[in-house]
């Protein structure tokens, strides 16, 4: 609670970076592997801080992402709100999982999210996506431990600067 101020700006900064990362195109070959950056960062923050990120903020971030990525307004908002809810719900358990188990839960969250998105897409009359649609959750899982370490590091650095 002491570090509220600085953490908040760090949270917003990392989320902004995640949003930008999701807009920056990868080379053609890698593009189906693009992870859901914003979700990963949001999961991290809602896991690591008690109340710095809540569903309201997730909703807002989702709306920004919707506007920027041209998806249906409210689509990413919905997906991120559900993500934060689930993390908060299972937080006490998730936090004490060993890294590999945590990565598996992240996979679960991301797959769940993809299922919701596919369901909405189906309602809109979109054709079913190819198998490549399921790659990003796997990449997200693989990236999770590293992202976790990176964000932890950033947090520690921000804290040091503050004190």
């Amino acid at each position, binding site marked *: 609670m002491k570090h509220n101020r600085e953490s908040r700006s760090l949270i917003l900064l990392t989320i902004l970076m995640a949003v930008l990362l999701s807009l920056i195109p990868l080379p053609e070959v890698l593009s189906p592997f693009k992870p859901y950056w914003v979700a990963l960062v949001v999961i991290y923050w809602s896991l690591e801080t008690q109340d710095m990120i809540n569903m*309201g903020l997730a909703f807002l971030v989702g709306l920004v992402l919707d506007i920027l990525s041209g*998806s249906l307004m409210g689509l990413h908002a919905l997906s991120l709100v559900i993500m934060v809810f689930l993390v908060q719900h299972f937080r006490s358990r998730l936090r004490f999982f060993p890294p590999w188990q945590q990565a598996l839960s992240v996979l679960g969250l991301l797959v769940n999210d993809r299922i919701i998105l596919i369901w*909405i897409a189906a309602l809109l009359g979109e054709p079913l996506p190819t198998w490549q649609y399921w790659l990003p959750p796997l990449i997200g899982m693989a990236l999770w431990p590293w992202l976790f370490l990176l964000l932890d590091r950033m947090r520690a650095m921000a804290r040091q600067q503050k004190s």
Partner: protein
Amino acid sequence: MLPVNDKNLVSRESSSPGRWFGEEGSRTARLMIYILLAIVLMFMDQIGHYVPRIRTAMELAFEPVFHVAGWPAEAFESIELRTRERNKLITENQQLLEQLLKVSGSVQTQTALVQENQRLRDLLGATRGREYFFEFAEMTRVDLDPFSHKVWINRGADEGVLVGQAVIDGLGIVGQVEDVLRHLSSVRLISDPDHALPVQINRTGLRTVAYGRGETSHLLMPNVPLQADVSPGDVIVTSGLGDRFPPGFPVGEVERVERDSGETFAKVYVRPYAALDRGREVLLIEVQKPPEALPTETEDANEPPQLEPQDEAEPLPVDQQ
């Protein structure tokens, strides 16, 4: 939606508002509210109620973000261009020159055809054909949601782009301009499931509508009569009905015809010519309304739009029909 969020941002003591339902219950209740809100938003966006207008306004506010997001890829490309081997450049240049020669050859014959066409039209007393100007634009390197069927191009209101303008690439129709920002505009692709394109089969002149299917690989023409003369390989062009897309531009080729005798219509699948998923360079079509009256009073009515595109990258005046 904003006040709700603000309240939540400000109220840090989110662990205590469990007055009515207890903590867990209040969280679930809030989840439900947000889900409902999101669903309402999505629904309104889908039926085009209010939300698209808010989106346009927000896009205008976020325009710098698009430019920033485009930088890395552009920088990468310029580095790649600079370090490209000399031999490769020379062969590429050679190929382009040959291509240019071929194209200008076919254009030469076309001018003769255009004049002939004009003479015939004059003989018939028909209206003059329209004149088109093409404005070059590039897609910006910003990744969008794969379900959005939208791309951003680097020309906007400042360059005179208008909502509804048709966009083509070197091969065929790409889509139409949807939102116009200052230096960017979004193009709705013809593959969007909500997009309908008035077309015509070039060989027979049969008019119909080609709908997007959410896939860049094909469009669907669901309203072709069972007995209609359509076969794979037929070229599909725009019919010009609906006044959005100018007539006569190639759209694609019939790929497959499904005739089920139980149904009223045949299903015709069309493979679009345009590189919807991998193209970079596009052309915006500017339609020059034909001078209806004789050149007496057309001076001021016709001058400004004709001059406007000329200070921008030299559009080619090409005459269709």
